[in-house]
């Protein structure tokens, strides 16, 4: 039995005027200042469409009024959350960019464990920055449960997933995924770590419990300075939405967030050339990792 439509709209609601070039620049400046995300000219249509829907929903007159709301409204912080939902792109899936996970499993983690073992029981803190709906940090959890736990019995792992978009984080905590997300997972993983139902794949509790999700803005320096002592940071596929200047800032802070000996992993087609010269480059056949020495 389907529910009747409960939202009531005024018939004949006129559309808002299109996004002018001036307003586009003002809005993109605001977004950039708060998040580091940069909207080039050719993505103007995207911003127009996504914000337009929100403006319609709020029954505002147009983009100018929306910007006023963002800057001076009484609920501006709430609206900022909605803004982030509207402007962040959320494509991700389990085991995205396999060679990096292979390198993590076969080289990076063993190296870190060996270094820490000399001082006591090894503990690794791993941060998945801009984790969206959570597939990336959960993949690390799966990697640990399936491959690392037996090799390194004394190893304990703390995994943190963060994002600027509060609603994807909510989805992440639920740990429930569709076909598209799990398409890269070997069947053994699906059998051992997921419960299937209704065409959905639900992560079992032991996996979900390994990851903590938090709200975090990579471009907020105050927030960044509070993240310390990570051994591995994964920041893949989000740097492409920044411009040079915001990339430089974010990567500089990520370096500071690492322990000495720690690693940064970035997206497949991304380069730190021109952005940071602080890391030691570790080259592998199919991927590059960046080490803080």
């Amino acid at each position: 039995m389907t529910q009747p439509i409960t939202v009531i709209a005024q018939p004949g609601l006129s559309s808002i005027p299109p996004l002018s070039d001036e307003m586009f620049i003002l809005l993109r400046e605001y977004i950039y200042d708060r998040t580091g995300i940069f909207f080039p000219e050719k993505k103007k249509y995207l911003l127009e469409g996504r914000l337009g829907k929100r403006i319609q929903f709020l029954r505002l007159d147009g983009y100018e009024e929306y910007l006023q709301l963002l800057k001076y409204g009484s609920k501006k912080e709430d609206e900022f959350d909605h803004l982030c939902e509207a402007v962040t792109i959320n494509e991700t899936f389990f085991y995205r960019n396999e060679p990096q996970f292979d390198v993590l499993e076969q080289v990076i983690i063993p190296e870190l464990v060996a270094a820490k073992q000399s001082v006591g029981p090894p503990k690794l803190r791993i941060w998945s920055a801009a984790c969206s709906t959570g597939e990336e940090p959960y993949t690390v959890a799966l990697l640990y449960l399936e491959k690392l736990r037996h090799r390194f019995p004394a190893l304990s792992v703390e995994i943190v997933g963060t994002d600027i978009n509060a609603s994807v984080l909510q989805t992440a905590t639920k740990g429930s995924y569709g076909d598209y997300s799990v398409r890269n997972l070997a069947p053994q993983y699906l059998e051992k770590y997921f419960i299937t139902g209704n065409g959905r794949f639900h992560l079992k509790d032991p996996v979900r419990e390994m990851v903590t999700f938090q709200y975090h803005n990579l471009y907020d320096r105050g927030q960044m300075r509070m993240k310390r002592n990570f051994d591995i940071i994964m920041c893949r596929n989000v740097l492409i939405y920044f411009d040079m200047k915001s990339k430089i800032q974010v990567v500089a802070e990520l370096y500071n967030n690492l322990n000495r000996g720690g690693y940064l992993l970035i997206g497949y087609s991304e380069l730190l050339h021109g952005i940071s010269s602080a890391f030691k480059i570790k080259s592998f056949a199919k991927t590059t990792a960046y080490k803080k020495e």
Partner: protein
Amino acid sequence: MSKTVLVVDDSATVRKFVAASLSLKGFRVITAADGMEALEKMPQEKFDLVITDLNMPDMDGFEFIKNLRETPEYAGIPIIILSSIVDQEEKDRGLQLGAYSYIEKPFSVEKVQREVARFLN
């Protein structure tokens, strides 16, 4: 399949002329402006030989060669240094770090083509 050479030099002119010399001989050439850019490009392509300068911003030739030799996948790749540095100590250092050969600048096109052919045939 033609062999691929990576040419690393901060001078655009040198990159262009070395690339031209080699592509005229049927090699495929990819270029990079310094060691860091070169290392970041390596996972996306398969290289058969590397030609590198020594003086470059962001990562000089010595660090680049050292990095290559430390990586299992590139430990055996032929490396040729192409540089204006004539100091014998520095040249030796390059060869010790793992370069196979050293060509001095200004270079002749034939010399470059010969050296590359030497290692890729």
